[in-house]
């Protein structure tokens, strides 16, 4: 009969009218994120060998690494920054890291007022050493592991 489908449709919406809303009240209720969520980045400076594989793996060239020769002619990290404004959050840098030094965090609230603020500065040796204490006070240590 004509119109049966129309009535069926009305029935379905009526069922949803009295159903439970699935809306997440975001700022009040925090989302439950999965462990592999692609949020911001965290760098474990202790593990980083400044090899630059992450920078090479990045399709958008957003990772900038500076390094220098330290004692025992070992390469050491001087500066690590990610231009999050251009980042795809594809995860190729995290996957390619041989020492598991770069990782995703659960932080997804990355909005900022200026373009400069979108650059994520994960490590800077100069500012680190003038700060005195060996403990890092930068964003580098909010990693999920290590």
């Amino acid at each position, binding site marked *: 009969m004509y119109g049966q489908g*129309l009535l069926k449709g009305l029935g379905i*919406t009526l069922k*949803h*009218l*009295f*159903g*439970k*809303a*699935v*809306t997440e009240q975001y700022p009040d209720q925090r989302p439950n994120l999965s462990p592999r969520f692609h949020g911001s980045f965290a760098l474990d400076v202790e593990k980083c060998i400044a090899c630059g594989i992450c920078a090479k793996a990045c399709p958008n060239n957003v990772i900038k690494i500076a390094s220098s020769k330290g004692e025992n002619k070992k390469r050491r990290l001087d500066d690590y920054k990610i231009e999050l404004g251009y980042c795809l959050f594809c995860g190729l840098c995290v996957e390619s890291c041989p020492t598991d030094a770069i990782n995703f965090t659960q932080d997804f609230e990355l909005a900022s007022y200026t373009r400069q603020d979108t650059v994520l500065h994960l490590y800077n040796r100069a500012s680190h050493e003038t700060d005195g204490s060996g403990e890092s006070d930068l964003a580098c240590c909010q990693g999920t592991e290590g």
Partner: protein
Amino acid sequence: MEKLNYLFVDLAQSLRSWFAGMGLSPFAIDMLVVLVAVVGIITFVLLNVLYLVYLERKISAYFQDRLGPNRVGPRGLLQTTMDVLKLIGKEDIRPTVADRWVFFLAPVIVFVPAVMMYAVVPFGEGMIAVDLNIGIFYFIAISSTTTIAFLMAGWGSNNKYSLLGGMRTVAQMVSYEIPLVFSLLGVIMLTGSLKMSDIVAAQKDMWFIVLQPVAFLIFFIAATAELNRGPFDLPEGEQEIIAGPHTEYSGMKFAMFFLAEYANLVSVSAIAVTLFLGGWRGPWLPSWLWFLIKLYGMILLFMWVRWTYPRIRIDHLMHLNWKFLLPLSFVNILVTGVGIKLYQWYQAMGWGW
């Protein structure tokens, strides 16, 4: 109970005697009472519109498993009030090449008939601003003038998308006007009067939706198209014609179109209630409360349909009207006429009920 039923009638009566006590002439008293009625109706319309927008957003949210507005005020009740304040604060832009007066007048002309239609709506027992003897004809005549405003908006904007959208709206509204009027004809044939109070009185024993179910269906579909509501909300089409006739309108001018849309929703629902659902008739509760309950039932039905069906294509819309609704409304008139004649025969033969 009796007191509540005649609450507004008594109020008008006491107002009238109060004015008489001030020593005014009968003409001045009539004018003042009409003025009060107009102010009352406009207040009713605007309050309804304000909270219908909120209702529509809430209902659509619930249909889609969302929560809807819930931030401004308790349960988001002040949301639309704040939206209106924001719209008033917006810059009123007029394109330099627009046809100045046509562009300016279109939102006014769309809103005025929307309010004028309420003159003949029987809100309750004895609660009708002007009980014209051609009430329903007046309603149809006024409601069909809205079309010209959409054409004016489309033309005055001097924008090809607006003009196309305006013409499309007019084509849709003019087409659906015909089955809408013909569906009302069945009710008028049964009543034998165009007067609103007579139509309500004729439904004393039985609502006309029982005698005229097809007419109600046609009326409902045609009214949905007349109101430019889903699934017939084609005056706007993001892909083809942007926002149609309201593309160039901003701030309060756009709000006028929006207000008129909801004011028309209320008035069309009021007409549906009066013609098919027995008007203000109902047991126990005061008549105006019954009217409001039925009115909101109709409005919720319109919203339910809007948030259920996807919008249809413009040519399908025209086909539905000219190839299905119009012939069906003709058949309905024919069957109603034959039925009335047969009933009269039965009564004349003495076999009647």
